[in-house]
């Protein structure tokens, strides 16, 4: 099979940019990535975006990128997979190269959220639930799903709100060193635990924020020092009430299993990880589902500091969704931005010992989509 390599990455500052347009953010990230790649001839563009249509009234993002950057009359598409839009867009690029159709693909992700009210954004995010379900009509939300999950997790394990706070604190401490992160102000465990309740037991710091931002990556079959060792994607139940085991997200587990299988490696071989911590609870569960820690024991690994930058399995050295920020369509690509820098040895919170294998996991919906990419320094 054709190998796929990373030739360039780009990322805007994540945060509140009410005065910058979606196009401006998108092109900024694309130009950074293209410059880093030496401005190659691009054969196709994929753009990950979730709510450009619903809250910003802007579509045709792929064509805008091709046109504004003068890439020629090449094929482009927007990819939507809720919060996994960016990761799925990257996977489309990988598949396009592996098929032999394209040599070089530009993949970007973008979201504009901060111009809208929280209620309107929450409503727009709820488009990633099944409108026809009694569950959505009951008033369940995304944070709500992970709140229900967290209460059960607490009930079945020794974990408590303090463990969720430890995840949020770790990611905040990482973001403080990341110049592109949205939240770089220090926080304390007490402050996190006492913050305003969003959906019991999840407080403000347990939930990823609304963010403006963009990220981009240039992929090619031509060799580079960063190899996309595997790309895998899975679906899962779109409703909480259909979960066989509430404390499992099958899409994460299955996408991880497939990615390891294709790469011929196991969780023990991974040196650095970016996980989809849309909520602190999600990170606790994902580190179990991806096989880094035993089922129902993710909270112990967190308590022991094993997922810190200096731990044996560093998770979210960028600050994660919780503190780097979560501009939905850009998130999956910003994970790869951090990991590419980790493999080059140029990341904020650089992991010691020249990491060789890096894993990114990007989730959409209440476990509806999950994408895993494993990158390798070659």
């Amino acid at each position, binding site marked *: 099979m054709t190998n796929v390599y990373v030739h360039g990455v780009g990322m805007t500052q994540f945060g509140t940019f009410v005065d910058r347009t979606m196009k401006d953010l998108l092109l900024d990230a694309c130009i950074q990535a293209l410059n880093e790649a030496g401005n190659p001839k691009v054969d196709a563009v994929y753009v990950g975006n979730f709510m450009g249509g619903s809250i910003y009234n802007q579509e045709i993002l792929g064509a805008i990128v091709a046109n504004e950057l003068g890439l020629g009359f090449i094929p482009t598409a927007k990819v939507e997979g809720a919060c996994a839009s960016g990761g799925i867009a990257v996977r489309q690029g990988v598949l396009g190269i592996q098929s032999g159709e394209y040599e070089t693909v530009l993949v970007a992700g973008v979201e504009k959220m901060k111009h809208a009210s929280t209620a309107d954004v*929450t409503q727009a995010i709820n488009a990633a639930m099944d409108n026809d*379900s*009694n569950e959505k009509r009951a*008033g369940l939300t995304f944070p709500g799903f992970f709140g229900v999950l967290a209460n*059960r997790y607490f009930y079945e394990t020794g974990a408590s709100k303090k463990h969720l706070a430890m995840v949020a604190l770790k990611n905040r401490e990482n973001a403080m060193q990341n110049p592109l992160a949205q939240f770089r102000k220090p926080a304390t465990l007490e402050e996190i635990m006492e913050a305003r309740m969003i959906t019991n037991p999840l407080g403000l710091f347990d939930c990823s924020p609304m963010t403006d931002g963009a990220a981009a990556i240039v992929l090619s079959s031509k060799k580079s020092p960063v190899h996309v060792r595997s790309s895998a994607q899975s679906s899962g139940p779109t*409703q909480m009430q259909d979960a066989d085991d509430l404390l499992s997200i099958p899409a994460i587990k299955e996408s991880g299993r497939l990615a390891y299988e294709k790469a011929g490696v196991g969780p023990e071989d991974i040196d650095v990880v970016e996980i989809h911590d849309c909520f602190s609870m999600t990170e606790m569960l994902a580190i179990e589902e991806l096989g880094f820690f035993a089922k129902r024991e993710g909270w112990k690994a967190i308590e022991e500091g094993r997922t810190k930058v200096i731990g044996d399995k560093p998770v979210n050295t960028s600050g994660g969704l919780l503190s780097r920020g979560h501009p939905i369509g850009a998130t999956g690509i910003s994970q790869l931005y951090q990991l590419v820098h980790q493999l080059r040895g140029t990341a904020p919170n650089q992991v010691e010992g020249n990491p060789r294998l890096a894993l990114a996991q990007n989730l959409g919906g209440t476990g509806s989509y999950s994408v895993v990419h494993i990158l390798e320094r070659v």
Partner: protein
Amino acid sequence: MRVMKIFACMNCDYHSVTSKYTCPKCQQGKLQETEVSPKGTVYSFTDIHVAPAEFAHIAPYTVALIQLDEAPVKVTARMDSEVTIGDAVELKGLEEGAFIYTKAN
């Protein structure tokens, strides 16, 4: 309400409160509608303080995942009061497509 409609696979032990074209577990069987008691216990819950625009007027409200007593099926419902895991609950009614549950006496 006396009954809860559920769907059972005719080929394996899969059950769900939602219908599917084909059983997601064995990927072979068709699902057959059947009726059970809506009574159950709270498997887990959350109190939603920050709600989407369409529910903002009733926030904070409680959403629970309810394990039915008579079938291996869980149902997401809105509660009419706060609950905790293990509480016995019963169906109070339907409201715009949502199951509304209440604590059993």
